[in-house]
């Protein structure tokens, strides 16, 4: 009897294969979007179809896509509302700017300097994520959202009173809440609310794209790992997760810290795209903007968030004359999405539309997808 049952369990392998297929499909679409996006933008720029203004947005597009991916780790995969993502971005941006300036006299090769700066940015943002994550992750729902919101504001206000400079001997000077005396303007790195000045731009489109690919790689792999399944199980049912022996705080913290580190790296790249950068750039609006990408793309849907981030960064630039209405458009879209997700009749209508579109998609996607779909239909 037991033997027969054991044999049946070879279906287990099949189940995992189906899971693997779903993962592969998600990875395929996400990486595909990146590669196609890269080629299209690169070609468009070289042919002259894309103007200078829009080209200036290439790095921010990559950065926002990376931020959307990393925030999805917390909001979508771990299921916690975080309203302070710009805070981690700021930590990464200013860490990166300082590291780049300190290394400049010693290390001539820009890409290597940038990589070191990115690593430092990730570490500092991860530390920030850990420090605020430990006390707040025992909070739930709205309370967590409020504390992350406060964190974002605290970081920004903290940056407002930070002063860094490099003196003539290349020594790093630091002051809190007052300006540094006896240095020239060129030697300033961070000047309180004015922020960073005289940044030698190190960000390139290709570099930013590689960073986005790295972010995607980390998040997709984490999502598909044993740890990722634990994180999602806790999201689905915290009490059940506890009852099967998952260390809830550990997994919540893992998602939060990884997300923070990735946001720090994105922030670092962002900071290397401008010659001046003020802390006000990382205010609450930016946190909300990233959240909007995630929500519009469908919470937990990684490539959905990527597309939303890219479109919502490109569109205002493409229609510059209407850019004044950007926040208005966001508000309207957000309200529509809320109606869409919480209004049952509206939701049913959307679902029926999606159902109508879906079968067509099935046909043109290959054999692999069919297999995983049919697996689902049995379920």
């Amino acid at each position, binding site marked *: 009897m037991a033997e027969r049952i054991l044999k049946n*369990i070879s279906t287990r392998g099949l189940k995992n294969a189906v899971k693997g297929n779903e993962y592969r499909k998600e990875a395929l679409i996400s990486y595909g979007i990146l590669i196609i996006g890269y080629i299209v933008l690169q070609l468009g720029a070289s042919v002259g179809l894309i103007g200078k203004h829009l080209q200036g947005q290439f790095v921010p597009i990559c950065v926002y896509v990376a931020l959307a991916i990393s925030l999805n780790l917390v909001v979508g995969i771990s299921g916690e509302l975080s309203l302070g993502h710009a805070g981690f971005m700021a930590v990464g941006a200013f860490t990166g700017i300082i590291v780049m300036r300190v290394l400049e006299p010693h290390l001539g090769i820009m890409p290597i300097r940038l990589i070191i700066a990115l690593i430092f940015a990730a570490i500092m943002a991860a530390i920030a994520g850990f420090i605020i994550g430990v006390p707040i992750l025992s909070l739930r729902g709205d309370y967590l959202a409020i504390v992350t919101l406060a964190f974002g504001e605290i970081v920004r206000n903290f940056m407002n009173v930070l002063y860094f400079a490099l003196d003539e001997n290349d020594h790093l000077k630091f002051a809190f809440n007052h300006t540094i005396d006896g240095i020239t303007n060129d030697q300033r790195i961070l000047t309180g609310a004015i922020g960073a000045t005289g940044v030698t731009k190190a960000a390139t489109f290709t570099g930013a794209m590689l960073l986005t690919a790295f972010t995607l790689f980390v998040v997709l792999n984490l999502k598909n790992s044993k740890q990722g399944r634990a994180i999602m199980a806790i999201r689905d049912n915290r009490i059940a997760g*506890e009852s*099967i022996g998952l260390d809830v705080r550990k997994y919540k913290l893992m998602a939060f810290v990884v997300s923070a580190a990735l946001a720090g790296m994105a922030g670092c790249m962002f900071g290397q795209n401008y010659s001046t950068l003020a802390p006000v750039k990382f205010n609450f609006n930016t946190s909300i903007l990233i959240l909007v990408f995630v929500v519009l793309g469908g919470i937990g849907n990684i490539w959905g968030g990527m597309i939303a981030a890219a479109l919502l960064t490109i569109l205002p630039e493409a229609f510059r004359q209407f850019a004044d209405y950007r926040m208005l458009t966001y508000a309207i879209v957000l309200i529509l999405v809320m109606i869409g997700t919480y209004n049952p009749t509206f939701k049913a209508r959307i679902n029926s539309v999606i159902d109508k579109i879906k079968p067509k998609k099935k046909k043109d996607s290959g054999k692999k997808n069919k297999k995983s779909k049919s697996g689902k239909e049995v*379920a």
Partner: protein
Amino acid sequence: MGTVLTVKNINVYYGAIHAIKGISFDVNRGEIVTLIGANGAGKSTTLHTVSGLLRSKTGDIEFLGESISHTAAHKIVSMGISHVPEGRRIFQGMTVQENLEMGAFVTKQDRIPENLAYVYEQFPRLKERTSQIAGTLSGGEQQMLAMGRALMSDPELLMLDEPSMGLAPILVDQIFEIIQNLNKAGTTILLVEQNAQMALSVADRAYVIETGKISLSGTGEELARSDEVRKAYLGG
């Protein structure tokens, strides 16, 4: 026989609310022990304290001779206590099989096929539905899934919180039969129930909890015959 679980004088608070007021009991290897009591008596709170999700201000909890009153909840699971919480906490979006696999999160990889086989043997209903999404299972099947998932971690002690809640009488009978089968197969069981009659009929020993204190204890039979229990919990 050997004692599996010893709970000594625990006091548990929810903020200012004193929910458990000095409860002590023990569970021996191979037994079915049941805690019965009215709504809000503190039965679930007691189980939560044993599984480490709540902490007692006083006393001690020992599992297999080792104090676990300061052990993290996730470690207690891997030590061998599985808690099936009240209200069928399953992973709604996962399939039956995935739910069971999650249950083996703290289990050694090579034990999983064997445990899975055992669970499917005990719950044939689940075996027919391995790839069904758990949220679409009936209430009784969800309860079975929650129990099956708890068995995936090789528990020495299985704690069940109101497994019969909201089930039709036939299903209640089935669940209690399964509980007895699991017990015969070697799992020690701590059962919390509102359905005092059923619980007492399968239990070796029982404790009655009243507003955070143990008011009566004895064998299942003794309590089923006791006037106090009959008046308060068995309807006359």
